[in-house]
């Protein structure tokens, strides 16, 4: 059983509001000073789900893949410290500024290249853009079935029993391997890495792959291949205006309020 976990490094969602800034010119988030990026929370949970299956089965392998800059090594190491066996970093300037489609394309290419993969586990969504598409699109690219927002995953024979979170309850499904599963926070907390594993992970080398390694043309990935265009990124301004309604008596105040609301076309 070989499971691939897709992991994304994102800006810390707990960045204090005052430190969260956007560069209007480039339409990008300015990395907050002194606040290191983190592993997307849902991907940690996906890793936990994969590791539990590996441990339950006795043998098996978990490979963590991340697409991103050099700093994304930290996210990979974190999953390695949790117990994953190998790490792959998909790192190429051509991959930058893509959308869900191009990301899924790159990840799927890397998974194909690994060859013997039985399942792909992703977080239900990346905790920065919250689109929740990449998992589905990987399945699309691979031509595999996909089941999303899992709160429980177990291996049975050649199939995964997946318990899914619905708006009003849970759904039990079964999907034949190979398959893609996206895992939700209802699954539980990712484990705290043991120190011996942290140290072992620190010693592991992460394989790096570029577009060329994966046989991808730079024009079909990253910004060049993206179909989604970001128009404007901004922090909405929140304002509140208060006006006190004058009036000698409560009746008069009520009348003034109604007149005001009518004038503002609120009623």
């Amino acid at each position, binding site marked *: 059983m070989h499971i691939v976990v897709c992991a994304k490094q994102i800006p810390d969602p*707990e960045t*204090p509001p005052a430190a969260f800034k956007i560069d209007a010119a480039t339409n990008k988030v300015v990395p907050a000073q*002194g606040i290191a990026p983190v592993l997307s929370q849902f991907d940690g949970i996906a890793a936990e789900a994969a590791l539990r299956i590996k441990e339950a089965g006795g043998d098996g392998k978990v490979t963590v893949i991340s697409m991103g800059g050099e700093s994304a090594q930290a996210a990979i190491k974190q999953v390695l410290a949790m117990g994953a066996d190998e790490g792959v970093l998909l790192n190429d300037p051509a991959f930058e500024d893509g959308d869900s489609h191009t990301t899924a394309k790159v990840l799927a290419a890397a998974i194909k290249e690994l060859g013997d993969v039985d399942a792909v586990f992703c977080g239900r969504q990346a905790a920065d853009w919250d689109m929740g598409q990449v998992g589905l699109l990987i399945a699309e690219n691979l031509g595999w079935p996909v089941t999303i927002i899992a709160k429980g995953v177990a291996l049975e024979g050649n199939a995964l029993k997946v318990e899914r979170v619905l708006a009003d309850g849970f759904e039990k499904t079964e999907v034949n391997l190979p398959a893609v599963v996206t895992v939700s926070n209802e699954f539980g907390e990712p484990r*705290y890495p*043991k120190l011996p594993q942290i140290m072992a992970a620190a010693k592991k080398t992460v394989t790096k792959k570029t577009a060329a390694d994966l046989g991808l043309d730079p024009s079909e990935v990253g910004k060049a291949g993206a179909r989604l265009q970001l128009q404007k990124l901004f922090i909405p301004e929140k304002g509140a205006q208060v006006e006190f309604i004058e009036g000698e008596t409560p009746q008069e105040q009520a009348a003034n309020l109604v007149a005001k609301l009518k004038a503002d076309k609120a009623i």
Partner: protein
Amino acid sequence: MAVSTNRVNQSTGAPRRLVGAWWGPAVGASAIGFYATATAPRDEAGREIFFNVPAGSWAVYVFLAALMGLLVWGFVRHASLWGIGRPTPGLLRDIPSRLRNTARLGLAQDKVRRDRYAGIMHWSIMSSIVVLTLVTAQVAVEADTPLHFLYGDYYLFFSFYGDLFGVIGLIGVGMALYRRYFADFHRIRWDERLEDHLIILGLGLVLLTGFITEAARIQVTELDQHPDWAVWSFGGYAIANFLDLFGFSESQVLTFHEWTWWFHVSAAFAWLGMIVFTRLDHLFFAPVNAFFLRTDAPGRLAKIEDIETQEVFGVGYIQDFTWKQLFELDACVRCGRCTDVCPANIAGQPLSPMHLIQDLKMHLADVGPAIQQHRHETGEAGREVSTVALTGDVIKDETLWACRTCGACMQECPVMIEHVPTIVDMRRFLVMNEARIPATAQGALENLEMRGHPWRGTALERTTWMEGFDDVPIFDGTQEYLYWVGCSGSLVERNLPITKAVFRLLRESGASFGVMGQEETCNGDPARRLGNEYLYQILAQQLVETFKAKNVQKVITNCPHCFNTFKNEYPQFDGYFEVLHHTEFLNDRLHDGSLKATHAINANVTYHDSCYLGRLNGVYDAPRQILEMVPGASLTEMQRNLSKGLCCGAGGGNMWQEEVGERRVNQVRSEEAIRTGADQLISNCPFCIQMFEDGVPGVQPEEEGRIRPFDIAELLEDAVFGPDKREEPVSAGEPSA
């Protein structure tokens, strides 16, 4: 300011030597005895040794030899178990302090006397045993060496103090019997065993039969012949007079004497033999453990050297303790003092330091021999020998997590056991080796790793508190002091007013200081206390380097945890700084006049000694002196104060844990504060303040008349700048874990 004086009766400074000198007279008396050998004329008072019991002479030596053999055997048996532990570094460092500890804590029993009743009781029993042993030794010397001195005036004096200490011993036994069987006194019954009865009843019996034997001899040899000698043995004399009333014949008395003599001697040796099998072994182990007691700061935890190369992290197998840690398990006398003062235990949470020590001791006895044998045969560590897990089976996880590292147990332990390092060693195993951590504590640790502070979910920045001040100096190496704000001082809403107060006071005092602002990162204390020594070392190493790069020499902190870490633990990373808690610094400035508290506060306050400032670092006076200088503030101490103070519940990483058990520690302590009738609860630690903000409403649901927790800096800010200048603190900043 009026300090109402219900302070717990105990010293904060020089130890009291009042009772400590008791043994001087006893030793002196014996010396006089030898001196008397040369001086006294021969035909004076004296007695026949082994009177009426001719076989006694050899019997005593047989008993003695057996006892010695037993003691040696017992020692070897114990020592071979301690021997499975790891080497104990630094045990021979600082010998003068160690000898001082042996004298003060071991022989003079400073800790025993922290419970006054027990102090008197224990002193009586101990001195009686020591003196009567000396008495017996003199008899032996008289009988079996050429020296001859038990006659004349010295004989009479000898008789006198022998009886005196016999009576003192009986008084001690009486006090012990009262506590054990009649008083409503719990702690000694939490783990009561058969031996406890045997020890105390046995000793009573030995002392009593001693008197009766003596009385029988006096009745026959002195009562009529030398009544002027007999009165010196006043105990025996009184009983002899009583026996005389029955009009027994001389031969009857002689038979009686023979029987009681044998009984007394056998019982005495049997009692001494119990040293090997019972907690009486503290007789030897307690003074030795006083010698082993570490002489550095009690708030310091040991560093794991070369952590990268360890096979196992922390202690998850009994043989991974140091042998000193194993040795001290044997010293425990099950007195219950530690458990009695343990905040977790007081709140009904699953931790009793006494049971923890006893469980470890039992486990060592269970698996130690097999481990030892395995070692002997294979030379391996033998971690797989024990089938029960030390952490989890022997000591439950929740027990380890409930500890506040408050040090109350170590403060009280009469045999100087150090519980906290032992507990933290096992936590280290849980966290680093097994990754078994309560979820909320794990969140704090992850946050430390990811964000450099333990306050998951805070919306504040390290510079938020500076808003409204345009003159906060950034430390650049030219100022004298670094004001270390700390994560709690900057990232928890409730504490911002404290930080601002300290800042304003420092500025007002004219001190040359700066802050690090965004560049602060946690110094690692929560990681170390929660058991993640690896993470701690990374954080500490980094910060020491930053401090050095910035040329930091002196640090002022508003957090006793930061204070303790910088002061006591950073030297382990070659970081030597002069560290002051703000109470110390501000107290000095009040004394030298650069700060003036001129505005009357008119409040009844009570003062909470945080463990990390008080018990673990001995800063008791500075904050109280500040309170004295605040006009109109009157201090009422809580029942538990100074070194007996009760933890607020936050220490040892419990700030980031859900409490399990009957009650919450912060509520127990809040209740105690409320009982003083004070309207302000003053502390010196941002954690304490948070705990009380959280705990008080649970005890006083009505907002009206509720006691309000403040840092002493907030109170002083009022007194210096005027009460209307204080910024109202926002409601409690619970960590959103």
